[in-house]
């Protein structure tokens, strides 16, 4: 194995492959190291890939990349027992490239992306776990993997949410449970024509759902999206839920979700073909790691770059954007032959200017809403009860709409709490 390369990227997920591809494309030497035998085998996600950023890197990528369905329908659904209230949005505009979202199978997609980086000239080394950073005079100068030591001008951490390298570099403290969600997902196989009928889709159109009210009394939510011939169904529960003497064990949360009639009808006769779990950074802007130091950059989940604002979840797109910014920083550093903090700081500047950190800053108060358990249980119940009263004629006189709304909400939520939640929602969203 080579003993010195210009840049080492650790982790062949979207952040790592975007970094390696961008560097290789412009003729820069880069080694992409991945612990799985094949890139993608360790990676799990629970959402839609938005296309706009990747399109800038690989124009019209959707024509060659293994994407499943183009998401043309989005729904936010409040579940309460056997009832549900949903807000649906459907428009061909959602499916219009390059701003469209795609459902993807990560094993296939990440493999394709890493291969693209390799074809562009990156060295791809798989089946190698990076154990530690290599230091000289208190500066990061490379990586150690088993007995191998490889030096580099810059090491890019793209090693995911449990980034051991970012901690070793001293750029973040150990992750705290309050800032992390546990995502659990099942992939359920169904024939594509049944998916199309059941979800009212045509051809390769797809849908993505977000659920609230499905995580008992704990902060979290659920999701579903359609692949070509399978559904990805999952939940995300905040980790502190497991401290409260939760009677529900982690794997049972997804069983609970599947019991709602709304869900059980969608997955009926489907076959479970994969179970998986992955952590989600949910601390937002305030819980980001430091992004750089001498000869070292942090990208994607490793830095905590993800956004959860209840109705939308974004991570892969942020990862790709950060990878592109990291590559630009390294290209510039290579020209200047300077790899100190001074040149690495350019990455922070690019990220500050990008939609990634702008969005994370705008929604910096969103994590408080995600932690509000009233949002997860009380409001979905209240709104479902209200809907029942609105649409059911039970022989008694109908109250006026405003009175009905106030009656239902104030019966379950005290006025001060209602006001606090309102303020929180305005601040956060």
């Amino acid at each position, binding site marked *: 194995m080579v003993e010195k390369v210009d840049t080492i990227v650790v982790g062949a997920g979207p952040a790592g492959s975007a970094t390696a591809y961008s560097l290789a494309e412009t003729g820069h030497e880069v080694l992409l190291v991945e612990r799985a035998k094949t890139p993608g085998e360790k990676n799990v996600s629970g959402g839609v890939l938005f296309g706009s950023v990747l399109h800038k890197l690989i124009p019209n990528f959707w024509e060659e990349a293994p994407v499943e369905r183009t998401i043309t329908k989005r729904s936010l659904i409040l579940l309460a027992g056997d009832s549900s209230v949903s807000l649906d949005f459907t428009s061909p505009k959602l499916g219009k490239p390059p701003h469209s979202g795609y459902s993807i199978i990560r094993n296939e997609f990440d493999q394709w992306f890493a291969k693209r980086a390799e074809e562009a000239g990156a060295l791809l080394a798989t089946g*190698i776990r990076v154990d530690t950073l290599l230091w000289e005079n208190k500066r990061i100068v490379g990586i150690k993997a088993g007995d191998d030591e490889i030096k580099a001008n810059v090491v890019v951490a793209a090693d995911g949410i449990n980034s051991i390298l970012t901690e070793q570099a001293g750029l973040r403290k150990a992750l705290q449970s309050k800032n992390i969600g546990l995502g659990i997902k099942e992939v359920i196989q169904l024939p594509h024509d049944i998916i199309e009928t059941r979800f009212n889709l045509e051809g390769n159109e797809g849908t993505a759902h977000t659920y609230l009210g499905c995580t008992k009394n704990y902060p979290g939510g659920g999701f579903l999206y359609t692949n070509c011939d399978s559904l990805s169904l999952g939940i995300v529960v905040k*980790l502190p839920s*497991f401290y409260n003497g939760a009677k529900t064990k982690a794997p049972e949360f997804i069983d609970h979700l599947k019991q709602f009639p709304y869900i059980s009808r969608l997955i009926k006769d489907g076959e*479970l073909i*994969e*179970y998986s*779990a992955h952590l989600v950074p949910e601390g937002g802007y305030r819980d980001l790691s430091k992004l750089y130091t001498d000869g070292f950059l942090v990208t994607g989940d490793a830095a905590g770059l993800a956004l959860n604002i209840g109705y939308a979840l974004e991570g892969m797109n942020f990862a790709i954007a950060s990878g592109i910014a990291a590559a630009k920083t390294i290209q510039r550093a290579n020209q200047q032959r300077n790899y100190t903090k001074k040149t690495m700081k350019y990455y922070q500047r690019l990220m500050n200017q990008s939609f990634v950190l702008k969005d994370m800053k705008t929604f910096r108060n969103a994590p408080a809403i995600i932690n509000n358990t009233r949002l997860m249980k009380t409001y979905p119940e209240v709104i479902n009860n209200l809907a029942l009263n609105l649409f059911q004629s039970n022989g008694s006189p109908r109250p006026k709409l405003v009175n009905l709304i106030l009656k239902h909400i104030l019966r379950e939520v005290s006025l001060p709490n209602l006001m606090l939640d309102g303020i929180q929602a305005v601040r956060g969203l």
Partner: protein
Amino acid sequence: MTTKIETKLGTLRYNIDKEAHIQVNFQLCKNCIIKPCIIGCPAQCFQLIDREIHFQYEDCIECGTCKILCDKKAIQWNYPRGTFGVAFQKG
């Protein structure tokens, strides 16, 4: 309708290493009352048998939940060595 954890994990492919990638200091578990690892591990690798924690790394799906939940610092956590561990076919 609950699905057994064995059925869920049965959908997965593993290449199991001879050595464990996670070490648990069971002495420290004795002082832990809430034992969040048992509840939080999505692969149910932690079991309480005769009031003692038992851990088996073979079913681990490498999420990192146990490391973050454990406030007794009883868990020495790492990924499996290269090529070992779970291999998601979908993800």
